[in-house]
């Protein structure tokens, strides 16, 4: 397959992997993978979470040593003991989680580990480094201010600092691990511009992602990885989202979730004139009112940082309410404790899996009873009942298709999709009538997204009220029955899903529509 691709692009290969196998105890992360990156191309490495993409690139970057297989850089066989070796060969990597010191300036961060010095190596030559950062930044259109403090920069800007770091070290093979996972839709487009510019300047790029839309937008070539093996190559000119998804998951994937029309009942959750502040004491939710009825999904769309997190936390008792009222299932739960709200029959799938939703060093079993550990049958009086908990866990793991070697496994060792399934299983297996769910499928692969969407719709069909907060417009459009757009803590508009269009929602997300028009002088 790859022979065809190479013949088409007459460029010379800069990075060749052949027969790379990397095993961890009990897991074959990479199984005989071969992969070629040609000069001046963007080669997308596509695969579900846990497919082995990141492992492969960590091998390339010298962070892991492969069990077998060879790596060639510009035709020369290499063996990397550490990332320093890889950097010396001109390989740069931008990790999904940035490796930046937030209290340092851009210059200090870029120099870290590759200090520019004067005076016999004793004094930092910040001026020279700053100058070089300016040059790099200008050459590749990265627009980075060398004197800015990294903590003050937006996520998109921090990512460009990471790129500068790699380019500063003369990298010409760049590995970008899930670079768009942290970006807003606008930033993604901007980022693609940066990437294309890099390629125009002669860099070669490995772009790791699991987002199909992006692959088709940016790739010159595509390699799909499934279960640690190459599942196939694809040509972005011919491939469709459907064909890539099928290759990635290994079966036909349903994109549009099967959904019957909603049959809304009485009001299950109600928010009236709600005002909530964020950590800095700034108003994040401002005079917000809406209702969610039983048997419907109310989707809250919006660019992240417009009060979504504060709204969800205020509704579930995790954040103090400045003024206004929250009502759940007919009860006033304004400023109630999380436990009271949960035990009324309100489920909560939080935005941040590993911070709120799970205790990553606990077993699956413990995480599945995280908010019910004190109730029968999991506890009698004050003693925890291990048998009942284990039984419960085995049942849910099966029912919710959590892929794991056992229920005693630490949740932190599971892939993101399986971690999320543990949370979904815990919340949906409780007797809930309202579900507040934030970013339920962020960072997940297609297979898990499909499964979780089906579960949410099943809850609705059984008469549950769902408040769905998501930054993914596609998710809102395919799941919600009614849609509200949150802009600066207020609703910029509410629509029936049937009447809403992508363009209209996107416009409101970006501008706030009449909300800002009326504020204008």
């Amino acid at each position, binding site marked *: 397959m790859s022979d065809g691709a190479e013949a088409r692009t007459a460029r010379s290969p800069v990075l060749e992997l052949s027969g790379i196998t990397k095993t961890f105890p009990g897991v074959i992360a990479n199984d005989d993978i071969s992969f070629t990156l040609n000069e001046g191309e963007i080669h997308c490495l596509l695969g579900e979470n846990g497919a082995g993409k990141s492992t492969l690139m960590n091998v390339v970057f010298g962070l892991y040593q492969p069990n077998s297989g060879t790596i060639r850089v510009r035709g020369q066989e290499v063996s990397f003991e550490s990332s320093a070796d890889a950097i010396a060969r001109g390989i740069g990597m931008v990790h999904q989680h940035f490796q930046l010191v937030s209290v340092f300036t851009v210059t200090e961060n870029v120099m870290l580990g590759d200090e520019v010095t004067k005076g016999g190596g004793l004094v930092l030559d910040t001026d020279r480094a700053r100058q070089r950062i300016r040059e790099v930044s200008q050459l590749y259109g990265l627009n980075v201010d060398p004197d800015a403090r990294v903590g003050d920069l937006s996520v998109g800007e921090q990512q460009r600092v990471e790129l500068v770091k790699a380019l500063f070290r003369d990298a010409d093979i760049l590995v970008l691990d899930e670079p768009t996972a942290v970006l807003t839709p606008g930033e993604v487009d901007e980022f693609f511009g940066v990437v294309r510019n890099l390629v125009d300047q002669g860099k070669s790029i490995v772009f790791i992602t699991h987002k199909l839309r992006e692959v088709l937008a940016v790739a010159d070539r595509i390699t799909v990885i499934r279960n640690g093996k190459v599942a196939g190559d694809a040509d972005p000119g011919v491939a469709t989202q459907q064909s890539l998804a099928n290759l990635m998951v290994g079966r036909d994937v349903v994109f549009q979730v099967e959904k019957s029309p909603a049959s809304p009942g009485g009001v299950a959750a109600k928010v009236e004139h709600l005002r909530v502040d964020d950590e800095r004491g700034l108003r994040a939710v401002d005079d917000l009112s809406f209702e969610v009825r039983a048997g419907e999904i109310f989707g809250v769309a919006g660019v992240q940082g417009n009060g979504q997190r504060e709204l969800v936390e205020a509704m*579930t008792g*995790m954040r103090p309410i400045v003024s206004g009222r929250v009502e759940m299932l007919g009860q006033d739960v304004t400023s109630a*404790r*999380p*436990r009271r709200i*949960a*035990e009324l029959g309100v489920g*909560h799938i*939080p935005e941040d899996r590993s*911070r*709120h*939703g*799970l*205790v*990553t*060093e*606990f077993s699956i079993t*413990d995480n599945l009873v*995280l*908010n019910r*550990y*004190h109730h029968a049958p999991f*506890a009698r009086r*004050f*003693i*925890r009942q291990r048998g009942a908990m284990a039984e419960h866990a085995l049942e849910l793991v099966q029912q919710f298709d959590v892929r794991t070697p056992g229920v005693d496994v630490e949740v932190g060792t599971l892939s993101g999709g399986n971690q999320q399934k543990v949370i979904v299983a815990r919340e949906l297996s409780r007797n809930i009538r309202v579900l507040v769910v934030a970013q339920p499928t962020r960072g997940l692969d297609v297979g898990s997204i499909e499964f979780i969407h089906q579960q949410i719709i099943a809850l609705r069909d059984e008469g549950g009220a769902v408040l769905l907060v998501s930054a993914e417009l596609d998710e809102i459009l395919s799941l919600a029955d009614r849609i509200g757009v949150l802009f600066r803590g207020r609703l910029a508009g509410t629509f029936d899903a049937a009447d809403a269009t992508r363009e209209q929602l996107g416009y409101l997300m970006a501008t706030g529509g009449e909300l800002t028009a009326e504020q204008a002088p």
Partner: protein
Amino acid sequence: MTSDPDNLNQRIDRAGGRVRAAVLETFRLQPLLIPFYALVLAVLIGGVLIALVGVNPFEAYWALLRGMFGNGDRLAGSIARSVPFIGSALALAFAFRAGLFNIGAEGQLLVGGVLAAWVGTWAWIADVPGFFAVVLMVLAGLMGGAFWGGIPGVLRAKTGAHEVISTIMLNSIALFFIRWMVNSRNPVVLRDVASTVPRTEPVADNALLPKIVDSSPPVHFGLFLLIGASVLAAFILNRTIFGFEVATVGANADAATYAGMNVNRVIIVVMAVSGSFAGLSGASEVAGTAGFFQPGFFLAMGFDGIAIALLARVNPYAIIPAALLWGSMLNGASLMQQEADVSVDVVRIIQALVLLFVAADAIVRYVFRVKVVEDTYGSVLRGSSGA
């Protein structure tokens, strides 16, 4: 069957490895391997030190060993010296599970001990049945420790003040305030004016804990109280819903809030319970060993508790043998000094080395080729505590 000797050796090695692995697995000893090897290494280095001051290390260690367990009286004395360390070590270990670093066992011991001594000198205590008198004194110790441990808990929960700072401060407050109460002749607060050394009045005879062995120091009923406390601590942490809340708060306080747990309440209760373990040690020493209170009894006992808890990898059961080792080494040191003319401080050096090697376990792993096994407490000594 092959007769190739190399092959046979390999097989024996492998079989030996399997047996060893099975034993470690069965008794869950893996986490205790490092402390054990650390002790071996510390003793070796201590031996070199002893040789350097011109004494035969085998003679010195033989004296130390006989000082620790040489005869019945020595053995009993060693056990008796070890008992209070159990409580002060539990004070650290229990709070540690909630991600809190309770450095305040020293102060909690003092407050528990002085409160128990004060209750024991109440006039009417002498008239109640011995059982009630003892229970009252022990309760006073528990409550004193709980109070002194609860203060940093409240400060942490309500103001965010870090418990390491506040417990250290409270140690000094307890030490100097109690020392004043016991020293002062004008006004007389707790001082026994008939005594030439500063101490409290003796507690009523019926409030004394029964002695089991009349060694020096005596083994008294406090041994069972503190072993019971270890079992209770393990039970609470591992089996109860409160223990689950403690572990959740320790591992991820945000997730605990999400799960509906009252994080502040857990922090306060954990610190109070931790303090009560130290307070129990204080009361048991007053009611079992001395019969009165003197601040000097508890010198460094709280801080040694920290070392013991870390040596036991904050496992409540492992604290019992760790405390026994600690206390008996201190007890044996005197005989080593008498017979081999080696300062008792050598024992202190060995203890410090043990702790150093446990903390810097990479050294032990390298010397003894121990594989890395991450247990729940693995991060404790490397300073990445959840606090």
